[in-house]
């Protein structure tokens, strides 16, 4: 680990300009001192919360997902997109002002059932437009891109691991590599649908011995990989993998992740991501590319609801993205990198049925830098109550360790059912 101090530019959210990486390295020692309000996870009837964060990589066009149909400027600026949507189906009304893209049927149903909250004009504190840096800020939990080496979910997991109380296989990263959000001191599992036959236990043992003597990093990874095999969902046949591309694969991902989250000895904090949201050209939210992505996302949510049924009342699925997109349609029938966007909180633990949006308007003077939806809610304000009220972390821990330098960001109220 290096200790290069990062630099970042002072922005309009009034953050500490001396904030740098050295500060973060010192934090690690304090983790064990904080932690959750003690709870006996094994006691019957005690809450056993699950959190799954779905990261939509590329920058989801929030205004196409949750259309501000009540805003006359929306109709003016996005008429081509709106026509495209209408040609395929009717927008799904939320509260008279906002309506969902018709592909997001499950999300709409859950909203009606008061199990989904939709946030609009929300963003992380990041204000530039680089995917790389925006994703870092989204995942690291720090207010700026400083080449962090840990993510906020990993630090949250560390907070949940008090002495001997919780199994150490708490964190789960779905996918072939562990993204920043799940990197850090806490060890997490990684899992992805497999179709190779299993390797023998004896070879693993011998390899484990070798790694323990020569390569601790590989040893840790192998240990978790082997444990995972013991718990893992059944082998997925080659045939089902060939399915309709994204849709089928996502279904398998949802099923697999859900299985691991439902188990009493399984994971509790998980993350998965869906790529492809960077719609610079031919966005077509009604009949084309974005519509297909919405369909896949909705299928993922539906499958999760179904597979997590035994623990749905204890579950929060958070859907986030690194930034929204330009309000105007660009010259290639798409949108470019923007700022304010949407986020969803879904699950039986959510006090849902409303749209959280301090709507800034879409007139040019109301836009951020004349081009993007101005963010009026910090994403962390939405996540904080999930960490405290749903997972049981102390507010102090969240403020000091999970989202450092966020004391000015007040947690939203009425997010989690008590």
């Amino acid at each position: 680990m290096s200790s290069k101090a990062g630099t970042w530019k002072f922005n309009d959210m009034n953050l500490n300009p001396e904030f740098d990486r050295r500060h973060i390295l010192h934090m690690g020692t304090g983790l064990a001192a904080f932690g959750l309000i003690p709870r006996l996870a094994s006691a019957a009837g005690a809450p056993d919360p699950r959190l799954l964060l779905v990261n939509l990589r590329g920058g989801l066009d929030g205004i196409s997902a949750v259309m501000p149909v009540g805003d006359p400027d929306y109709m003016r600026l996005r008429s081509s997109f709106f026509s495209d949507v209408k040609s395929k189906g009717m927008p799904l009304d939320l509260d008279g002002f906002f309506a969902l893209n018709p592909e997001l049927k499950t999300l709409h149903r859950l909203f009606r059932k008061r199990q989904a909250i939709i946030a609009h004009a929300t963003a992380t504190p990041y204000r530039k437009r680089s995917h790389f840096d925006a994703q870092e800020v989204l995942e690291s939990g720090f207010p700026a891109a400083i080449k962090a080496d840990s993510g906020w979910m990993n630090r949250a997991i560390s907070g949940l691991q008090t002495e001997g109380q919780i199994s150490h296989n708490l964190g789960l990263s779905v996918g072939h590599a562990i993204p920043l959000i799940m990197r850090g001191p806490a060890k997490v599992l990684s899992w992805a649908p497999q179709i190779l036959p299993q390797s023998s236990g004896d070879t693993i043992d011998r390899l484990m011995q070798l790694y323990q003597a020569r390569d601790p990093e590989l040893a840790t990874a192998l240990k978790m990989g082997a444990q995972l095999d013991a718990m893992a969902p059944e082998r997925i046949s080659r045939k089902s993998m060939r399915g309709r591309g994204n849709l089928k694969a996502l279904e398998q991902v949802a099923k697999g992740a859900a299985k691991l989250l439902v188990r009493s000895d399984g994971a509790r904090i998980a993350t998965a991501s869906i790529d492809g949201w960077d719609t610079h050209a031919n966005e077509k939210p009604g009949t084309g590319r974005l519509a297909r992505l919405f369909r896949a996302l909705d299928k993922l949510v539906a499958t999760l609801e179904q597979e997590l049924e035994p623990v749905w009342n204890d579950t929060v699925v958070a859907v986030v993205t690194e930034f929204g997109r330009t309000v105007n349609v660009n010259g290639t029938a798409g949108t470019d990198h923007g700022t304010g966007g949407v986020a969803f909180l879904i699950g039986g633990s959510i006090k849902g049925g409303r749209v959280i949006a301090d709507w800034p308007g879409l007139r040019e003077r109301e836009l951020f830098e004349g081009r993007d939806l101005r963010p009026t809610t910090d994403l962390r304000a939405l996540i904080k109550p999930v960490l405290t009220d749903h997972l049981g972390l102390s507010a102090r821990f969240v403020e000091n360790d999970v989202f450092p330098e966020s004391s000015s960001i007040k947690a939203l109220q009425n997010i989690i059912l008590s």
Partner: protein
Amino acid sequence: MKQEIELSQALAFHRFGWGRRYDQRALPAGSRAQLVALLLDDAENSSSLSFDDLPASRDTLKTWFDYRREIKAIRARKQEAGVEKPKSPSRQFLLGELEARFDADRMSEIGFGERLVDFWSNHFAVSAINPRMAVIAGPYRREAVRPHISGRFEDLLLSVTRHPAMIHYLDNQVSMGPNSKAGRRRSKGLNENLAREILELHTVGVNGGYTQQDVTNFAKVLTGWSIVGPKARGGTIGTFIFRRFMHEPGAQKIMGKVYDQRDLEQGISVLRTLAHHPATARFVSQKLVQHFVSDDPPKILVARVEQTFLNSGGDLQRMYETLLQDTNSWQPELRKIRRPYEYVVATSRAFNVRPKPKNLFGSLKLMGQQPFRPPSPQGWPDVGESWIAPDALKTRLDWAEQVARRRPSRDVRALARDILGPLLSDETDLAIARAESAKQAMALMMLSPEFQRR
């Protein structure tokens, strides 16, 4: 003295190449300086390697357009039932490219040049995100990247930016200036994607000191950089073309410099300036050292390579020379993790196995590195923590056991000594010796830290 050169030879193969082949012994080099010369020659040879039996991107694109036209025609005639639909050419082209590339890699002498083609193709990444990209992602490496790996960075940058694969991947072929002839007929036309990624990922880097306005202005400069489509307007189908009627007229200011050239020259001038910018020297040198030496590259080595870049005007061979001459590059600790493709090539060389392209494709996909399909314009990540994950490692082990099952080696212990030489640890040697079967011994060797790292 002999021990030192043995170690250097092992590292030459292992760190700067694809790993020793089962039939390779000592390189004709008695000193480190001679090794460096061999490696630099290797790079030059790779840059002139041609693949005569593979189709050019203009041909694959034409085939793709023809296929699309046929499909549309069949649909239009509503003749879907009973008519034999033509097969999409994408997968066949992809597998052909993979096969050629894999063979070049596994049969290369050391592989330094091929590693460089891989490195630069990843730095200037394009991705087979759809069937059209799939037919040109492979030719792109051969046509745009390979010929320039031993030349100047400027030429490499100009080459990749003008290749249809890059133009198409980053949506530039229809980007038009608002005040251009075409743009004035519509209200907007600009697409920022290519301009942003050139600045952020290819040249000066995200901290290079550019602003949003610079991105927009650069996007204007790049309007008109396009591809000849299926109607063959203005040139050969599937080739680069500059379309003046889409180009935003007028001077543009980018990173403090005003560019008042006209048409194509304007963009070329910007690219030339970026190619020699100090931030580019730093960013590119950092990536190069990080790729070969360590996830956390030694600052002093990066600084030296950066200095060579600046002094030589971006002469890549000179940069490689600086990298190779530095003692930091020859430390015996193997710190970098082999990415899935590197692992598979190294296995192929060590055990003389040649997976079929279709199986190769599937295995790499499972290991998280689907050929020609990096997840974003950033390319495949180059740090261990992105690849060392429980699931990924388990997959590598499962694959190793599959390979071992099909082609068990006879004397794995001797093979390990030949392939790894002084890099072989006592612990791995012992583990191999104590294995209960040749199959298990092979799997253990393949998954050993020395084989997983370089």
